[in-house]
Protein backbone atom coordinates (compact mmCIF):
# COMPACT_ATOMS: atom_id res chain seq x y z
CA UNK A 1 0.00 0.00 0.00
CA UNK A 2 1.41 3.40 -0.97
CA UNK A 3 1.98 5.99 1.76
CA UNK A 4 1.08 3.44 4.39
CA UNK A 5 1.77 4.67 7.91
CA UNK A 6 3.88 2.21 9.84
CA UNK A 7 4.46 4.34 12.89
CA UNK A 8 1.93 5.61 15.44
CA UNK A 9 1.99 7.24 18.86
CA UNK A 10 -0.27 4.63 20.42
CA UNK A 11 -1.55 1.16 19.75
CA UNK A 12 -4.96 0.51 21.28
CA UNK A 13 -5.78 -3.20 21.38
CA UNK A 14 -9.54 -3.71 21.42
CA UNK A 15 -12.33 -1.68 19.82
CA UNK A 16 -15.00 -1.89 22.50
CA UNK A 17 -16.24 1.07 24.48
CA UNK A 18 -13.00 1.35 26.49
CA UNK A 19 -10.78 1.10 23.42
CA UNK A 20 -12.82 3.68 21.54
CA UNK A 21 -12.79 6.11 24.45
CA UNK A 22 -9.02 5.72 24.86
CA UNK A 23 -8.39 6.16 21.14
CA UNK A 24 -10.64 9.21 20.93
CA UNK A 25 -9.10 10.91 23.95
CA UNK A 26 -5.61 10.42 22.56
CA UNK A 27 -6.64 11.45 19.06
CA UNK A 28 -8.19 14.66 20.39
CA UNK A 29 -4.81 15.44 21.96
CA UNK A 30 -3.37 15.10 18.46
CA UNK A 31 -1.73 11.74 18.94
CA UNK A 32 -1.85 9.26 16.10
CA UNK A 33 -3.59 6.08 17.15
CA UNK A 34 -3.93 2.64 15.60
CA UNK A 35 -6.96 0.79 16.95
CA UNK A 36 -6.92 -2.96 16.35
CA UNK A 37 -10.12 -4.99 16.70
CA UNK A 38 -10.41 -8.74 16.10
CA UNK A 39 -14.11 -8.59 15.21
CA UNK A 40 -15.49 -7.24 11.92
CA UNK A 41 -16.94 -4.16 13.62
CA UNK A 42 -15.86 -1.89 16.42
CA UNK A 43 -18.32 -1.35 19.29
CA UNK A 44 -17.50 -4.41 21.37
CA UNK A 45 -20.25 -6.03 23.34
CA UNK A 46 -22.04 -2.78 24.11
CA UNK A 47 -23.14 -2.27 20.50
CA UNK A 48 -25.02 -5.58 20.74
CA UNK A 49 -26.99 -4.67 23.87
CA UNK A 50 -30.63 -3.66 23.97
CA UNK A 51 -30.66 -0.98 26.65
CA UNK A 52 -28.42 0.07 29.51
CA UNK A 53 -29.04 0.16 33.25
CA UNK A 54 -30.19 2.01 35.29
CA UNK A 55 -31.50 4.59 32.83
CA UNK A 56 -32.90 2.20 30.23
CA UNK A 57 -31.36 4.35 27.53
CA UNK A 58 -31.02 2.64 24.16
CA UNK A 59 -27.48 1.14 24.07
CA UNK A 60 -27.09 1.68 20.34
CA UNK A 61 -28.12 5.34 20.68
CA UNK A 62 -25.27 5.90 23.13
CA UNK A 63 -22.60 3.80 21.53
CA UNK A 64 -23.06 4.46 17.81
CA UNK A 65 -22.17 8.20 17.99
CA UNK A 66 -18.95 7.25 19.78
CA UNK A 67 -18.30 4.47 17.28
CA UNK A 68 -18.84 6.90 14.38
CA UNK A 69 -16.65 9.57 15.97
CA UNK A 70 -13.88 7.00 16.44
CA UNK A 71 -14.22 5.77 12.87
CA UNK A 72 -14.18 9.27 11.40
CA UNK A 73 -11.42 10.83 13.48
CA UNK A 74 -8.48 11.73 11.23
CA UNK A 75 -5.94 10.74 13.89
CA UNK A 76 -7.36 7.23 14.31
CA UNK A 77 -6.68 4.34 11.97
CA UNK A 78 -8.82 1.26 12.56
CA UNK A 79 -8.00 -2.30 11.60
CA UNK A 80 -10.99 -4.60 12.05
CA UNK A 81 -10.79 -8.36 11.62
CA UNK A 82 -7.21 -8.01 12.81
CA UNK A 83 -5.04 -9.39 15.55
CA UNK A 84 -1.97 -8.20 17.35
CA UNK A 85 0.34 -11.20 17.12
CA UNK A 86 3.28 -9.89 19.08
CA UNK A 87 4.46 -6.78 20.92
CA UNK A 88 8.13 -6.28 21.65
CA UNK A 89 9.60 -3.48 23.67
CA UNK A 90 12.70 -2.27 21.88
CA UNK A 91 13.73 0.43 24.31
CA UNK A 92 12.18 3.45 25.97
CA UNK A 93 9.02 4.57 24.17
CA UNK A 94 9.61 2.17 21.34
CA UNK A 95 7.35 -0.80 20.81
CA UNK A 96 7.19 -2.99 17.76
CA UNK A 97 3.99 -4.87 17.08
CA UNK A 98 3.22 -7.49 14.46
CA UNK A 99 -0.34 -7.12 13.27
CA UNK A 100 -2.19 -9.67 11.19
CA UNK A 101 -5.00 -8.31 9.02
CA UNK A 102 -7.38 -10.98 7.82
CA UNK A 103 -8.94 -10.33 4.43
CA UNK A 104 -12.66 -9.47 4.27
CA UNK A 105 -12.65 -10.53 0.61
CA UNK A 106 -14.57 -7.30 0.07
CA UNK A 107 -13.02 -3.99 -0.98
CA UNK A 108 -13.65 -1.69 1.95
CA UNK A 109 -13.63 1.45 -0.18
CA UNK A 110 -16.10 0.02 -2.70
CA UNK A 111 -18.69 -1.80 -0.56
CA UNK A 112 -21.76 0.29 0.21
CA UNK A 113 -23.25 -2.18 2.69
CA UNK A 114 -26.31 -2.63 0.43
CA UNK A 115 -26.49 -6.38 1.25
CA UNK A 116 -27.40 -7.29 -2.35
CA UNK A 117 -24.86 -10.09 -1.99
CA UNK A 118 -26.68 -11.82 0.88
CA UNK A 119 -29.83 -13.19 -0.79
CA UNK A 120 -27.85 -14.91 -3.55
CA UNK A 121 -25.49 -16.70 -1.17
CA UNK A 122 -26.52 -20.35 -0.80
CA UNK A 123 -24.81 -20.87 2.57
CA UNK A 124 -26.54 -20.41 5.92
CA UNK A 125 -24.55 -20.89 9.12
CA UNK A 126 -25.18 -19.80 12.70
CA UNK A 127 -24.94 -16.05 13.21
CA UNK A 128 -22.37 -15.38 15.94
CA UNK A 129 -23.59 -11.79 16.31
CA UNK A 130 -27.06 -13.11 17.20
CA UNK A 131 -25.50 -15.70 19.51
CA UNK A 132 -26.55 -18.59 17.25
CA UNK A 133 -30.29 -17.94 17.57
CA UNK A 134 -30.65 -17.51 13.81
CA UNK A 135 -28.63 -18.09 10.65
CA UNK A 136 -26.52 -15.80 8.50
CA UNK A 137 -25.05 -16.09 5.04
CA UNK A 138 -21.38 -16.79 4.25
CA UNK A 139 -21.24 -13.27 2.83
CA UNK A 140 -22.74 -10.91 5.33
CA UNK A 141 -22.84 -7.51 6.94
CA UNK A 142 -22.12 -8.42 10.59
CA UNK A 143 -25.14 -6.54 11.96
CA UNK A 144 -27.16 -3.54 10.86
CA UNK A 145 -25.32 -0.93 12.95
CA UNK A 146 -21.86 -2.42 12.41
CA UNK A 147 -19.03 0.01 11.80
CA UNK A 148 -17.61 -0.28 9.21
CA UNK A 149 -20.92 -1.31 7.65
CA UNK A 150 -19.19 -3.41 5.06
CA UNK A 151 -19.81 -6.98 4.02
CA UNK A 152 -17.32 -9.73 4.76
CA UNK A 153 -16.96 -13.26 3.49
CA UNK A 154 -16.64 -16.11 5.96
CA UNK A 155 -14.21 -17.97 3.77
CA UNK A 156 -14.24 -21.16 5.86
CA UNK A 157 -17.95 -21.57 5.11
CA UNK A 158 -17.95 -20.11 1.61
CA UNK A 159 -19.04 -22.35 -1.27
CA UNK A 160 -16.85 -20.35 -3.68
CA UNK A 161 -19.80 -20.20 -6.07
CA UNK A 162 -19.10 -16.58 -6.97
CA UNK A 163 -22.80 -15.61 -6.80
CA UNK A 164 -22.02 -12.67 -4.51
CA UNK A 165 -19.43 -11.36 -6.93
CA UNK A 166 -21.91 -11.48 -9.79
CA UNK A 167 -24.61 -9.82 -7.69
CA UNK A 168 -22.51 -7.00 -6.22
CA UNK A 169 -23.51 -3.75 -7.93
CA UNK A 170 -20.34 -2.03 -6.70
CA UNK A 171 -17.88 -4.71 -7.86
CA UNK A 172 -16.64 -4.83 -4.28
CA UNK A 173 -16.12 -8.57 -3.88
CA UNK A 174 -12.45 -9.46 -4.14
CA UNK A 175 -11.50 -13.08 -3.53
CA UNK A 176 -7.89 -12.30 -4.42
CA UNK A 177 -7.27 -10.62 -1.03
CA UNK A 178 -4.81 -12.36 1.25
CA UNK A 179 -3.88 -12.14 4.94
CA UNK A 180 -1.30 -9.47 5.57
CA UNK A 181 1.11 -9.36 8.48
CA UNK A 182 3.22 -6.27 9.05
CA UNK A 183 5.32 -4.73 11.78
CA UNK A 184 4.38 -1.31 13.10
CA UNK A 185 6.15 1.05 15.53
CA UNK A 186 4.47 2.61 18.57
CA UNK A 187 5.48 4.75 21.50
CA UNK A 188 2.87 3.32 23.85
CA UNK A 189 0.29 0.55 24.04
CA UNK A 190 -3.14 0.43 25.68
CA UNK A 191 -4.72 -2.95 26.38
CA UNK A 192 -8.51 -2.67 26.11
CA UNK A 193 -9.35 -6.27 25.35
CA UNK A 194 -12.44 -6.48 27.56
CA UNK A 195 -13.78 -9.74 28.91
CA UNK A 196 -15.20 -13.11 27.92
CA UNK A 197 -18.62 -14.42 28.85
CA UNK A 198 -18.81 -17.58 30.93
CA UNK A 199 -19.92 -20.54 28.84
CA UNK A 200 -22.65 -22.29 30.86
CA UNK A 201 -22.04 -25.54 29.02
CA UNK A 202 -19.40 -25.97 31.74
CA UNK A 203 -22.22 -26.41 34.28
CA UNK A 204 -24.02 -29.53 33.01
CA UNK A 205 -26.47 -29.50 35.93
CA UNK A 206 -28.12 -26.42 34.39
CA UNK A 207 -28.68 -28.21 31.09
CA UNK A 208 -27.60 -25.39 28.80
CA UNK A 209 -27.15 -26.68 25.26
CA UNK A 210 -29.19 -29.77 26.08
CA UNK A 211 -32.47 -28.08 26.97
CA UNK A 212 -33.35 -25.69 24.20
CA UNK A 213 -35.45 -23.28 26.28
CA UNK A 214 -32.50 -22.33 28.45
CA UNK A 215 -30.63 -19.37 27.03
CA UNK A 216 -27.89 -17.07 28.23
CA UNK A 217 -28.41 -13.47 29.26
CA UNK A 218 -26.60 -12.33 26.10
CA UNK A 219 -29.02 -14.33 23.97
CA UNK A 220 -31.91 -12.67 25.82
CA UNK A 221 -30.21 -9.32 25.27
CA UNK A 222 -30.39 -10.00 21.53
CA UNK A 223 -34.02 -11.11 21.77
CA UNK A 224 -34.81 -7.76 23.43
CA UNK A 225 -32.78 -5.60 21.05
CA UNK A 226 -34.37 -3.67 18.17
CA UNK A 227 -32.17 -5.65 15.73
CA UNK A 228 -33.33 -8.92 17.27
CA UNK A 229 -33.28 -12.31 15.60
CA UNK A 230 -36.98 -13.10 16.09
CA UNK A 231 -39.95 -10.84 15.67
CA UNK A 232 -40.48 -10.86 19.42
CA UNK A 233 -39.42 -12.77 22.53
CA UNK A 234 -39.68 -16.47 21.75
CA UNK A 235 -38.50 -19.74 23.20
CA UNK A 236 -35.81 -21.09 20.86
CA UNK A 237 -37.04 -24.60 21.63
CA UNK A 238 -40.40 -24.27 19.88
CA UNK A 239 -41.13 -20.63 19.09
CA UNK A 240 -43.58 -20.21 21.98
CA UNK A 241 -44.05 -16.77 23.47
CA UNK A 242 -42.98 -17.39 27.08
CA UNK A 243 -45.16 -16.31 29.96
CA UNK A 244 -43.21 -17.56 32.95
CA UNK A 245 -39.50 -16.83 32.86
CA UNK A 246 -36.75 -17.45 35.37
CA UNK A 247 -33.36 -15.80 35.73
CA UNK A 248 -30.56 -17.74 37.41
CA UNK A 249 -28.05 -15.25 38.77
CA UNK A 250 -24.37 -15.96 39.43
CA UNK A 251 -24.13 -18.57 36.65
CA UNK A 252 -20.39 -19.09 36.48
CA UNK A 253 -19.49 -16.33 38.90
CA UNK A 254 -18.93 -16.36 42.68
CA UNK A 255 -18.41 -20.06 42.15
CA UNK A 256 -15.16 -21.82 43.00
CA UNK A 257 -16.32 -25.01 41.33
CA UNK A 258 -16.08 -23.40 37.90
CA UNK A 259 -12.90 -21.50 38.70
CA UNK A 260 -14.47 -18.05 38.92
CA UNK A 261 -14.90 -17.06 42.56
CA UNK A 262 -15.40 -13.35 41.97
CA UNK A 263 -18.55 -11.29 41.42
CA UNK A 264 -19.07 -10.16 37.85
CA UNK A 265 -20.48 -6.82 39.05
CA UNK A 266 -22.96 -6.44 36.21
CA UNK A 267 -25.07 -9.62 36.27
CA UNK A 268 -27.56 -8.52 38.95
CA UNK A 269 -28.21 -5.24 37.25
CA UNK A 270 -28.42 -6.49 33.67
CA UNK A 271 -30.82 -9.22 34.82
CA UNK A 272 -33.01 -6.65 36.58
CA UNK A 273 -32.86 -4.51 33.44
CA UNK A 274 -33.90 -7.43 31.23
CA UNK A 275 -36.69 -8.33 33.66
CA UNK A 276 -38.06 -4.78 33.41
CA UNK A 277 -37.82 -4.88 29.61
CA UNK A 278 -39.57 -8.25 29.54
CA UNK A 279 -42.40 -6.86 31.67
CA UNK A 280 -42.80 -4.23 28.98
CA UNK A 281 -42.48 -6.61 26.02
CA UNK A 282 -44.63 -9.38 27.52
CA UNK A 283 -47.09 -7.61 29.86
CA UNK A 284 -48.77 -10.87 30.92
CA UNK A 285 -45.50 -12.64 31.74
CA UNK A 286 -44.23 -13.57 35.20
CA UNK A 287 -40.52 -13.02 35.73
CA UNK A 288 -38.69 -14.56 38.69
CA UNK A 289 -35.08 -13.84 39.58
CA UNK A 290 -33.25 -16.46 41.65
CA UNK A 291 -30.36 -14.79 43.43
CA UNK A 292 -27.78 -15.18 46.19
CA UNK A 293 -27.42 -11.48 46.93
CA UNK A 294 -28.56 -8.51 44.91
CA UNK A 295 -25.56 -6.27 44.50
CA UNK A 296 -27.05 -2.96 43.46
CA UNK A 297 -24.20 -0.79 44.60
CA UNK A 298 -24.03 1.95 41.95
CA UNK A 299 -25.70 5.30 41.55
CA UNK A 300 -29.42 4.76 41.01
CA UNK A 301 -29.02 0.97 41.09
CA UNK A 302 -31.02 0.28 44.24
CA UNK A 303 -33.89 2.46 43.02
CA UNK A 304 -33.76 0.44 39.77
CA UNK A 305 -34.04 -2.77 41.77
CA UNK A 306 -36.96 -1.37 43.77
CA UNK A 307 -38.66 -0.32 40.52
CA UNK A 308 -38.38 -3.88 39.22
CA UNK A 309 -39.99 -5.20 42.41
CA UNK A 310 -42.72 -2.57 42.06
CA UNK A 311 -43.35 -3.74 38.48
CA UNK A 312 -43.98 -7.25 39.76
CA UNK A 313 -40.65 -8.98 39.17
CA UNK A 314 -40.38 -11.69 41.80
CA UNK A 315 -37.09 -12.09 43.65
CA UNK A 316 -36.33 -15.45 45.27
CA UNK A 317 -33.24 -15.87 47.42
CA UNK A 318 -32.31 -19.35 46.34
CA UNK A 319 -29.43 -21.43 45.05
CA UNK A 320 -30.33 -23.46 41.99
CA UNK A 321 -29.13 -27.04 42.27
CA UNK A 322 -30.40 -28.57 39.06
CA UNK A 323 -32.58 -27.83 36.08
CA UNK A 324 -34.49 -30.57 34.29
CA UNK A 325 -36.78 -30.51 31.29
CA UNK A 326 -40.39 -31.65 30.95
CA UNK A 327 -41.81 -33.16 27.80
CA UNK A 328 -43.51 -29.90 26.81
CA UNK A 329 -40.18 -28.05 26.95
CA UNK A 330 -40.89 -26.43 30.31
CA UNK A 331 -38.12 -26.48 32.88
CA UNK A 332 -38.14 -27.59 36.48
CA UNK A 333 -35.77 -25.71 38.76
CA UNK A 334 -34.75 -27.49 41.93
CA UNK A 335 -33.44 -24.96 44.39
CA UNK A 336 -32.44 -24.39 47.96
CA UNK A 337 -34.71 -21.66 49.33
CA UNK A 338 -32.30 -19.69 51.47
CA UNK A 339 -35.06 -17.88 53.40
CA UNK A 340 -36.80 -21.07 54.54
CA UNK A 341 -33.98 -23.62 54.29
CA UNK A 342 -36.21 -25.89 52.21
CA UNK A 343 -35.44 -27.56 48.92
CA UNK A 344 -38.15 -26.64 46.43
CA UNK A 345 -39.07 -27.32 42.84
CA UNK A 346 -40.75 -24.85 40.54
CA UNK A 347 -41.68 -24.90 36.86
CA UNK A 348 -40.91 -22.17 34.31
CA UNK A 349 -41.33 -22.18 30.58
CA UNK A 350 -38.04 -20.44 29.84
CA UNK A 351 -34.82 -19.95 31.79
CA UNK A 352 -32.19 -17.28 31.32
CA UNK A 353 -28.75 -17.98 32.79
CA UNK A 354 -27.19 -14.72 33.93
CA UNK A 355 -23.67 -15.64 33.00
CA UNK A 356 -20.66 -14.19 34.72
CA UNK A 357 -17.70 -12.61 33.05
CA UNK A 358 -14.18 -13.92 32.75
CA UNK A 359 -10.80 -12.42 32.05
CA UNK A 360 -9.71 -12.30 28.42
CA UNK A 361 -6.22 -13.48 29.25
CA UNK A 362 -5.10 -14.36 25.70
CA UNK A 363 -3.49 -10.92 25.55
CA UNK A 364 -0.75 -12.35 27.78
CA UNK A 365 0.67 -14.32 24.85
CA UNK A 366 1.12 -11.14 22.83
CA UNK A 367 3.82 -9.48 24.93
CA UNK A 368 7.09 -11.12 23.98
CA UNK A 369 10.05 -9.31 25.51
CA UNK A 370 8.51 -8.48 28.85
CA UNK A 371 5.71 -10.58 30.27
CA UNK A 372 2.46 -8.73 31.01
CA UNK A 373 1.49 -9.52 34.59
CA UNK A 374 -1.96 -10.72 35.59
CA UNK A 375 -3.77 -10.68 38.92
CA UNK A 376 -5.05 -13.81 40.68
CA UNK A 377 -8.11 -13.91 38.45
CA UNK A 378 -6.17 -13.55 35.16
CA UNK A 379 -7.13 -9.90 34.61
CA UNK A 380 -4.34 -7.48 33.68
CA UNK A 381 -2.63 -6.54 36.92
CA UNK A 382 -2.94 -2.95 38.03
CA UNK A 383 0.36 -2.37 39.78
CA UNK A 384 -0.88 0.74 41.62
CA UNK A 385 -4.62 0.21 41.74
CA UNK A 386 -5.41 3.16 44.00
CA UNK A 387 -3.22 5.91 42.64
CA UNK A 388 -2.58 4.99 39.00
CA UNK A 389 -5.10 2.30 38.03
CA UNK A 390 -4.17 2.24 34.34
CA UNK A 391 -0.51 1.34 34.93
CA UNK A 392 0.69 -2.18 34.14
CA UNK A 393 4.03 -3.74 35.00
CA UNK A 394 5.42 -2.77 31.57
CA UNK A 395 6.39 0.86 31.32
CA UNK A 396 4.43 2.42 28.45
CA UNK A 397 1.72 -0.25 28.46
CA UNK A 398 -1.59 0.78 30.03
CA UNK A 399 -4.88 -1.00 30.67
CA UNK A 400 -8.40 0.27 30.05
CA UNK A 401 -11.85 -1.07 30.87
CA UNK A 402 -12.79 -4.64 31.75
CA UNK A 403 -9.35 -5.96 30.75
CA UNK A 404 -8.36 -5.04 34.33
CA UNK A 405 -11.46 -6.52 36.01
CA UNK A 406 -15.22 -6.77 35.78
CA UNK A 407 -16.92 -3.40 35.42
CA UNK A 408 -19.97 -1.74 33.90
CA UNK A 409 -20.07 0.70 31.01
CA UNK A 410 -19.58 4.00 32.92
CA UNK A 411 -16.68 2.51 34.87
CA UNK A 412 -15.12 1.24 31.63
CA UNK A 413 -15.30 4.75 30.21
CA UNK A 414 -13.80 6.20 33.40
CA UNK A 415 -11.05 3.61 33.26
CA UNK A 416 -10.38 4.48 29.61
CA UNK A 417 -10.10 8.14 30.65
CA UNK A 418 -7.45 7.15 33.15
CA UNK A 419 -5.58 5.01 30.59
CA UNK A 420 -5.59 7.74 27.96
CA UNK A 421 -4.37 10.34 30.49
CA UNK A 422 -1.54 8.06 31.57
CA UNK A 423 -0.65 7.27 27.96
CA UNK A 424 -0.73 10.96 27.03
CA UNK A 425 1.55 11.86 29.97
CA UNK A 426 3.92 9.12 28.89
CA UNK A 427 3.85 10.26 25.27
CA UNK A 428 4.42 13.88 26.31
CA UNK A 429 7.82 12.87 27.69
CA UNK A 430 9.01 12.14 24.15
CA UNK A 431 8.15 15.62 22.85
Amino acid at each position, binding site marked *: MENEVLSYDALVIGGGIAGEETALNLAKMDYKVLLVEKELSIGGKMILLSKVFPTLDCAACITTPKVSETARHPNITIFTGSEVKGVEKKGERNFEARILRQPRYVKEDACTGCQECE*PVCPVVVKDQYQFNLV*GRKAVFVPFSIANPRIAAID*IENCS*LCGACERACPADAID*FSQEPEEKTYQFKSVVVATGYKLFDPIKMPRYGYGKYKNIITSMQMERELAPTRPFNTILRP*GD*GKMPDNLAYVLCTGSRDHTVGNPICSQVCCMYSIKQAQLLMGALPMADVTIYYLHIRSFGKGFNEFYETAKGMGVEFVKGKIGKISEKENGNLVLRYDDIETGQVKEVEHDMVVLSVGILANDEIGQVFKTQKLEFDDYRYVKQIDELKRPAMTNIEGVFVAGAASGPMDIPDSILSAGSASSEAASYLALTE
Partner: protein
Amino acid sequence: MAGEKQRTVKVIKEKRTVSEEVKANIKHYNKMKKLIKDALKEGPKTIPEIAKATELPAHEATYYVMSMRKYGDVVTGEIDDMDEYFYYHLNQKN
Protein backbone atom coordinates in the same frame (compact mmCIF):
# COMPACT_ATOMS: atom_id res chain seq x y z
CA MET B 1 -15.73 -14.18 -23.65
CA ALA B 2 -15.34 -10.57 -24.76
CA GLY B 3 -16.91 -8.14 -22.29
CA GLU B 4 -17.13 -10.65 -19.47
CA LYS B 5 -15.57 -9.39 -16.25
CA GLN B 6 -12.66 -11.27 -14.76
CA ARG B 7 -14.15 -12.84 -11.65
CA THR B 8 -11.83 -12.99 -8.65
CA VAL B 9 -13.56 -16.17 -7.44
CA LYS B 10 -11.46 -17.98 -10.05
CA VAL B 11 -8.34 -16.85 -8.18
CA ILE B 12 -9.43 -18.36 -4.88
CA LYS B 13 -10.69 -21.55 -6.48
CA GLU B 14 -7.11 -22.25 -7.53
CA LYS B 15 -6.00 -22.04 -3.89
CA ARG B 16 -8.90 -23.46 -1.89
CA THR B 17 -11.40 -26.23 -2.16
CA VAL B 18 -14.84 -26.31 -0.61
CA SER B 19 -14.99 -28.72 2.30
CA GLU B 20 -17.40 -31.64 2.35
CA GLU B 21 -18.90 -30.10 5.51
CA VAL B 22 -19.77 -26.87 3.69
CA LYS B 23 -21.31 -28.83 0.81
CA ALA B 24 -23.32 -30.96 3.23
CA ASN B 25 -24.48 -27.86 5.10
CA ILE B 26 -25.79 -26.23 1.90
CA LYS B 27 -27.59 -29.42 0.95
CA HIS B 28 -29.10 -29.70 4.42
CA TYR B 29 -30.28 -26.08 4.53
CA ASN B 30 -31.89 -26.37 1.10
CA LYS B 31 -33.61 -29.57 2.17
CA MET B 32 -34.95 -27.90 5.35
CA LYS B 33 -36.07 -24.87 3.36
CA LYS B 34 -37.95 -27.05 0.88
CA LEU B 35 -39.57 -29.08 3.66
CA ILE B 36 -40.76 -25.94 5.43
CA LYS B 37 -41.95 -24.29 2.22
CA ASP B 38 -43.91 -27.42 1.30
CA ALA B 39 -45.48 -27.49 4.76
CA LEU B 40 -46.50 -23.84 4.46
CA LYS B 41 -47.99 -24.25 0.98
CA GLU B 42 -51.09 -25.65 2.65
CA GLY B 43 -51.46 -22.49 4.72
CA PRO B 44 -49.99 -20.67 7.73
CA LYS B 45 -48.63 -22.83 10.52
CA THR B 46 -47.13 -22.38 13.97
CA ILE B 47 -43.66 -23.74 14.67
CA PRO B 48 -44.96 -26.86 16.48
CA GLU B 49 -47.24 -27.48 13.47
CA ILE B 50 -44.31 -27.00 11.08
CA ALA B 51 -42.21 -29.34 13.22
CA LYS B 52 -44.93 -31.98 13.08
CA ALA B 53 -45.45 -31.62 9.34
CA THR B 54 -41.74 -31.79 8.56
CA GLU B 55 -40.83 -34.26 11.34
CA LEU B 56 -38.13 -31.86 12.48
CA PRO B 57 -37.31 -31.31 16.16
CA ALA B 58 -39.10 -28.11 17.24
CA HIS B 59 -35.87 -26.24 18.01
CA GLU B 60 -34.54 -26.95 14.54
CA ALA B 61 -37.82 -25.83 13.01
CA THR B 62 -37.53 -22.59 15.02
CA TYR B 63 -34.00 -21.97 13.77
CA TYR B 64 -34.82 -22.63 10.12
CA VAL B 65 -38.12 -20.72 10.15
CA MET B 66 -36.40 -17.73 11.77
CA SER B 67 -33.54 -17.88 9.26
CA MET B 68 -36.04 -18.08 6.40
CA ARG B 69 -37.92 -15.16 7.94
CA LYS B 70 -34.68 -13.16 8.08
CA TYR B 71 -34.10 -13.70 4.37
CA GLY B 72 -37.70 -12.99 3.38
CA ASP B 73 -38.92 -16.50 2.49
CA VAL B 74 -41.35 -16.57 5.40
CA VAL B 75 -43.34 -13.83 7.12
CA THR B 76 -44.88 -13.71 10.58
CA GLY B 77 -48.66 -13.73 10.78
CA GLU B 78 -51.17 -13.61 13.61
CA ILE B 79 -50.76 -15.19 17.03
CA ASP B 80 -52.92 -18.18 17.93
CA ASP B 81 -56.02 -18.00 20.16
CA MET B 82 -54.00 -18.93 23.26
CA ASP B 83 -51.49 -16.09 22.64
CA GLU B 84 -48.71 -18.66 22.56
CA TYR B 85 -47.55 -19.32 19.03
CA PHE B 86 -47.33 -17.11 15.95
CA TYR B 87 -48.41 -18.38 12.57
CA TYR B 88 -45.88 -18.19 9.77
CA HIS B 89 -46.69 -18.14 6.10
CA LEU B 90 -44.83 -18.03 2.82
CA ASN B 91 -43.87 -14.61 1.55
CA GLN B 92 -46.01 -14.19 -1.53
CA LYS B 93 -43.63 -11.56 -2.89
CA ASN B 94 -41.00 -14.26 -3.50
